[in-house]
């Protein structure tokens, strides 16, 4: 499949390399808000991307269809839509379908036809899989067997919008100014070895999980081979894809809490573990022994989101930047602090999370301020 179904990888590279800007914001009260600030923030980090990919994930997007899987599908060939819809009608109940509204004047490159479908999976009596697994299997079927069709968003009451262009132009194209959400993540892409294609932009999505990522994983090869043992098929050859699948495996299938998942992706050094109390040391040692192949090695910052939660994480020696900030009920994560300040000049606290230590924002849980970091222009009290 390498390089055949994936137009991003026309040269058949074993993996696609890119770099990026990231931004994310969560209202921990669950209040929905417009993405204007997000567009402004990601646009401010224009220099970190090169116009070959931008995208957004929005949570709390479709309250009217909150119980249905919202499939966003791009069609890049003439037969793709009819073929896909025939498949959807067999395997899903489709409650609503429509083209995703766009602004044709926006500065994006050769957009494909993009539709959204609100669906529930049909199940044969013999099928015992949970709905989520059924949906994943069928999406993988569409993405690997129907030429020129690509499902790029599949969660409930959330959606991914992405394409080729600078992120602010992608937002303009998808008329994202018209939507509300309680959690937004954004990505500007700087691919080094591909011309960029719409499906290859970020965020990467599986069910309601999304990942945006900056960096390059030196561990990609083994991360991928390990995930293949568990039935994940890495069709995009991107680091973001393996990060998303790893998170799906650890959190959804293996039932690990997000904090523990972070310790798999960015475990402490063996020497650091030895300094810890016995119980913690045993847990961390066991995690690393069992999940060593899922250690994300090399520079990365990721912002991971799913319903009710946003997580920022960097590699364990912090080779990629991440600024975190809190203002009232809002949590901000960004590649650069300046982008946050542009949206929210007065912050309660801004800090640089240590490598491997996740920043987690949850709906209903007010953000605890870290002991580190600074409050702008506060006087330092001498001790």
């Amino acid at each position, binding site marked *: 499949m390498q390089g055949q179904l994936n137009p991003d990888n026309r040269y*058949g590279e*074993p*993996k696609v*390399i890119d*770099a990026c800007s990231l931004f994310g914001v969560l209202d921990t009260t669950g209040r929905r808000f417009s993405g204007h600030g997000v567009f402004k923030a990601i646009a401010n980090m224009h220099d970190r991307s090169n116009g070959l990919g931008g995208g957004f994930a929005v949570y709390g997007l479709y309250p009217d269809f909150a119980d249905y899987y919202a499939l966003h599908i791009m069609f890049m060939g003439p037969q793709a839509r009819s073929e896909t819809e025939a498949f959807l009608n067999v395997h899903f109940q489709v409650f609503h379908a429509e083209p995703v509204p766009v602004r044709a004047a926006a500065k994006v490159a050769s957009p494909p036809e993009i539709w959204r479908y609100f669906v529930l999976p049909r199940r044969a009596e013999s099928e015992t899989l949970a709905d989520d697994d059924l949906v994943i299997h069928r999406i993988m079927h569409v993405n690997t067997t129907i030429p020129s069709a690509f499902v790029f968003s599949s969660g409930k009451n959330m959606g991914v919008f992405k394409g080729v262009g600078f992120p602010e132009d992608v937002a303009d194209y998808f008329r994202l100014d018209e939507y509300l959400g309680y959690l937004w993540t954004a990505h500007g892409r700087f691919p*080094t070895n591909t011309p960029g294609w719409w499906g290859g932009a970020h965020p990467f999505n599986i069910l309601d999980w999304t990942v945006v990522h900056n*960096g*390059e*994983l*030196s*561990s*990609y*090869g*083994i991360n991928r*081979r*390990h995930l*293949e*043992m*568990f039935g994940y098929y890495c069709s995009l050859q991107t680091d973001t894809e393996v990060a998303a699948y790893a998170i799906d495996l650890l959190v959804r*299938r*293996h*039932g*690990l*809490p997000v904090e*523990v998942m972070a310790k798999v992706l960015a475990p402490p*050094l*063996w*020497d650091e573990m030895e300094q810890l109390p016995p*119980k913690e040391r*045993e*847990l961390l040692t*066991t*995690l*690393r*022994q*069992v*999940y*060593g*192949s899922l*250690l994300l*090695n*090399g*520079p990365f910052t990721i912002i991971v989101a799913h319903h009710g939660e946003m997580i920022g994480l960097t590699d*364990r*020696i912090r*080779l990629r930047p991440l600024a975190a900030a809190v203002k009232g009920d809002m949590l901000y994560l960004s590649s650069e602090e300046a982008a946050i300040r542009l949206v929210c000049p007065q912050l309660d606290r801004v800090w640089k999370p240590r490598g491997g230590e996740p920043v987690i924002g949850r709906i209903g849980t007010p953000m605890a301020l870290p002991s580190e970091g600074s409050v702008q222009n506060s006087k330092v009290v001498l001790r």
Partner: protein
Amino acid sequence: MTSTRQAPATTQAEAHVQAPAYSYPMPSYLKPRFRVEIEDRRCIRCQCCVEQCSFGALFFDQRRNEVGTVEQNCVACHRCVVFCPTQAISVLRHPVEYRENAHWRPEVIEDITRQAETGGVLLTGMGSDKGWTCYWDKLCLNASQVTNPSIDPLREPMELRTYLGSKPDRVELDPKSGGLRTRLAPQVMVETPILFSAMSYGAVSINVHEALARAAAMTGTLFNTGEGGLHPKLYSYGKNTIVQVASGRFGVHPEYLDVASIIEIKIGQGAKPGIGGHLPGEKVSDDVAFTRMIPSGTDALSPAPQHDIYSIEDLSQLIHALKEATNYTKPVSVKIAAVHNSAAIASGIARAGADIIALDGIRGSTGAAPKIIRDNLGIPIEMAIASADERLRKEGIRQRVSLIAAGGFRNSADVIKAIALGADAVYIGTAALIALGCTECQACYTGRCAWGLTTTDEKLTKRQNPDIAAQRLANLLEGWSHEMKEMLGAMGINALESLRGNRLHLRSVGLTQQEADVLGVLQAGA
């Protein structure tokens, strides 16, 4: 070797053979391999070289007041060269030349000659010298440039630590307390993924065994007893010891099993797949006898198969017998020679309940093996480890076992490439002996090793000072470990587990598509 004709005719086959028509010694047509030249101007007649030569190639000629040579006895061990205080000695290839012939090479002619004179099976030591394709030399390693940074191992953390043992697919936590519910099978930690390969006491001297044990302790890794038991004076190194249970079951008793970190069932070894071993009675000294628990001076015979393992379910039975005997406190390894279907066998071994699988390739070494076996049976370790790793992954059971690769690892690059192909760790044997002076003269089977390595002769054994030998071995591991850290750092990786099975960091040069496919690597530039 003496002529088999003079041995007592004990077998049926020999009973039918007529006695030779003549009884005087057959003249040998073999020519010396090496020429020993002693520069008269430099020689001070100290006779150090004569003292050092354990093969009888040098003697002191009192009448001429000079060192004389018996060149056909020289094996090129270089002991005399190193110890000559005035650097007067050169060991050269013997200048007798054959007419060029690509097919009937001198070695072929000599082998035929030797067999014609003895009627025997050609015996040799160490690993195959036949130049099987070395795939390590056809694999290039990756390095980071721009899109991710290389990491500086001298100043930033770089982790080689490895845990050997079976791992589950997942970790389970108690949903209420968040505490750990998963209990792992026993794991053994090594600080560097380089282990000392099985070398039995008897095949090597007690001082070598002690040096291996101490070096393993110094560097946080493991040494392997081989199949000859463990001398009680080395029990204190148990934490760094893999004890072997082989077909001969020498020295296998509860204390031996209890003292170790890992128990290894030896099915085969790369140098002689499917072949047992004969430790000749001359090497069975009192101390060897004591350790192996057999009478002194008798041949120690290891059968070709383990006679309680004729099938895979029998292997499972032995694995679990050993686990029961040690109350499931230590991993059980199974070592096999890399052979044509070793991937499928590895899968069976994993399902039989082993925690570790050791694969030993065709370049693996031995103290003594039939030359024809050593040079022709088995497959290269590169292919075996790649296919075993891939097969175990396809079957979803790779987590269940650790894989150890063995057979001719020459340097840290070989090691790191094996790990990228999918090995958890490697065994080194020959490299360790070279660290102690071995020159690959292949005369181990004679028991006359001039370096005190593959001998049980008390005088020769003393040539290895365990203090110095342990330091040399530890130095070697330290040097290789540093180099591995440099290579990992260049690849932008700071933990070995992120390279393990990560074949994207390898690219092939000069391989056929099929070879590259078996190794699971892409062509360089692709």
